């Protein structure tokens, strides 16, 4: 192979081999608990100071693109669940929306289907943010919030398992509809959960957000200015914490989100600079509150205007064969971690796409770590990495 094609690798190898006498190379991961999965960060350090961060990915690469290109759209939905496995509903929602839009059935879906989708997606968003908040606490040394978050998340997991039959990987949202209607009594149980959860969330907020140790470890650490965040393609809570009101649920107004009332929390720099670790944490806490509001509205409509009827068939619009003419389409949706996109390139006379590419929000959010990690203390790097909230299933796909 041409020498030119190996130049990048050789340059990296030379950098590692020629470290100075005061420098040290430290591998953080791939089996380090604070990396939240199998991520390896190669640090070039000078004592306690990090001079350079070189991330190494791919330990969890499961060839999503290749799989999606070798089977039809319906069969690829379970693979989308495994991208961000903490928010499977949101992943399949984005994928399914793209296929429906290409089929031209996105406007014909029954309202009840759309409200159920929004409901389960927001439940999953809360579950994902609870993990982010809980594990962030434990990264920094706060053990109790972790237990509280997992206790409350388990209620959501149980409800979604009741709905779809699986605890984390649901395959519940189908092209043109849903696997089943909500189980009988789901709305009431969900209402009970919301009533239980609201004071618990306040308790969690009181415990962690204003804790002096937590503030010392997160405020003014890893400050991400808005222009850097945009340039690095950061999205979701990362971008909002830097003070930019950018939420695709509002911007694109997909599904039934235009009919729902919710605020978009942004970082205000209450404890330090705008866009620091504390802001990223706080945006997530506030987003959980907004998700609870959305769930209440969905429940209210699912029990009044769009209530359960005997003849409602959530599979009525599910196509037998997905026939899409040759075209290209990029769909994006707001996941708990940020903008999840799928780029489709379809071909005529077959229901197997030519190209599917998943744009994982964690992948882009993580790329900023080399910028944020320059010149910080090793212990602060853990703070920064935790505040980015990555899921390796999505980084490596």
């Amino acid at each position: 192979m041409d020498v030119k094609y190996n130049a990048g690798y050789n340059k990296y190898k030379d950098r590692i081999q020629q470290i100075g006498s005061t420098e040290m190379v430290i591998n953080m991961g791939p089996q380090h608990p604070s990396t939240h999965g199998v991520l390896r960060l190669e640090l070039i350090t000078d004592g306690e100071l990090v001079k350079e961060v070189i991330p190494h990915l791919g330990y969890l690469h499961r060839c999503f693109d290749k799989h999606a290109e070798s089977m039809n759209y319906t069969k690829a939905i379970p693979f989308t669940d495994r991208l961000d496995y903490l928010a499977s509903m949101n992943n399949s929602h984005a994928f399914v929306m793209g296929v429906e839009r290409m089929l031209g059935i996105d406007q014909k879906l029954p309202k009840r289907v759309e409200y159920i989708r929004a409901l389960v997606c927001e439940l999953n968003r809360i579950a994902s943010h609870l993990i982010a908040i809980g594990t962030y606490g434990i990264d920094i040394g706060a053990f109790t919030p972790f237990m509280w978050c997992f206790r409350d998340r388990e209620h959501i997991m149980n409800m979604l398992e009741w709905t779809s039959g699986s605890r984390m990987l649901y395959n519940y949202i189908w092209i043109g509809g849903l696997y089943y209607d909500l189980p009988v009594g789901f709305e009431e149980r969900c209402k009970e959960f919301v009533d239980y959860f609201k004071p618990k969330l306040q308790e969690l907020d009181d415990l962690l957000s204003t804790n002096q140790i937590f503030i010392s470890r997160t405020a003014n650490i890893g400050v991400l200015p808005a222009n850097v965040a945009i340039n690095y393609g950061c999205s979701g809570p990362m971008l909002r914490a830097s003070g930019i009101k950018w939420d695709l649920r509002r911007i694109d107004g997909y599904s039934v989100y235009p009919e729902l009332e919710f605020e978009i929390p942004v970082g205000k720099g209450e404890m330090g600079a705008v866009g620091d670790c504390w802001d990223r944490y706080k945006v997530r806490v506030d987003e959980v509150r907004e998700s609870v509001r959305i769930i209440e509205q969905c429940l209210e409509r699912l029990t009044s205007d769009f209530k359960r009827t005997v003849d409602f068939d959530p599979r009525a619009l599910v196509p037998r064969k997905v026939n899409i003419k040759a075209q290209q389409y990029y769909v994006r949706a707001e996941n708990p971690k940020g903008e999840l996109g799928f780029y489709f390139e379809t071909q005529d006379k077959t229901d197997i796409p030519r190209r599917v590419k998943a744009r994982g929000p964690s992948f882009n959010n993580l790329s900023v770590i080399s910028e944020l990690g320059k010149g910080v203390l090793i212990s602060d790097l853990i703070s920064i990495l935790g505040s980015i909230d990555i899921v390796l299933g999505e980084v490596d796909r």
Partner: protein
Amino acid sequence: MENQPPRTMIEKIVEDIKNTFGEDCLVRYEDAGLQPVLSVNPSYLVQLCAWLRDNPYYHFDFLSNITAVDYYPEPRFAVVYNLASLPFQYQLTLRVELDNDRSSDHLPELPSVSSVWRTADWHEREAFDLMGVFFNDHPDLRRILMPDDWQGFPLRKDYEDPEEYHGIPIK
């Protein structure tokens, strides 16, 4: 559902590009599909991207995605750029077509846009790793998801799995 610029705006962008960079900057403009696509001449790519990012009327400051597409058995590839504008909330798709004979000594080449959007760094590394598209002037072009000593480009349609990797049977 998505935020496409109105047709008049796309036409204005096309007009502006032609006035700024000349007629041969844009190869084609397709608006038949759901999202309009501008096919770009690769030699103008970096200038055009920087212009689209900095132009106060368009301001496409957010690069969502870069995708490399293989058109096997045809001897060509394409690289697709999905841009978004945060202030104006519009999306735009750019596309570069590359003819290539698929030999491993001669990868399809195009200039890197990582000097315009830093996020392109990892996206281009991924395209290089999995599809074998070489980006000139990239600061750090090496494999990202596959191991550094992997042979071949797995997302190409004519890729065949190796029998083993470091003595570990794969098939």
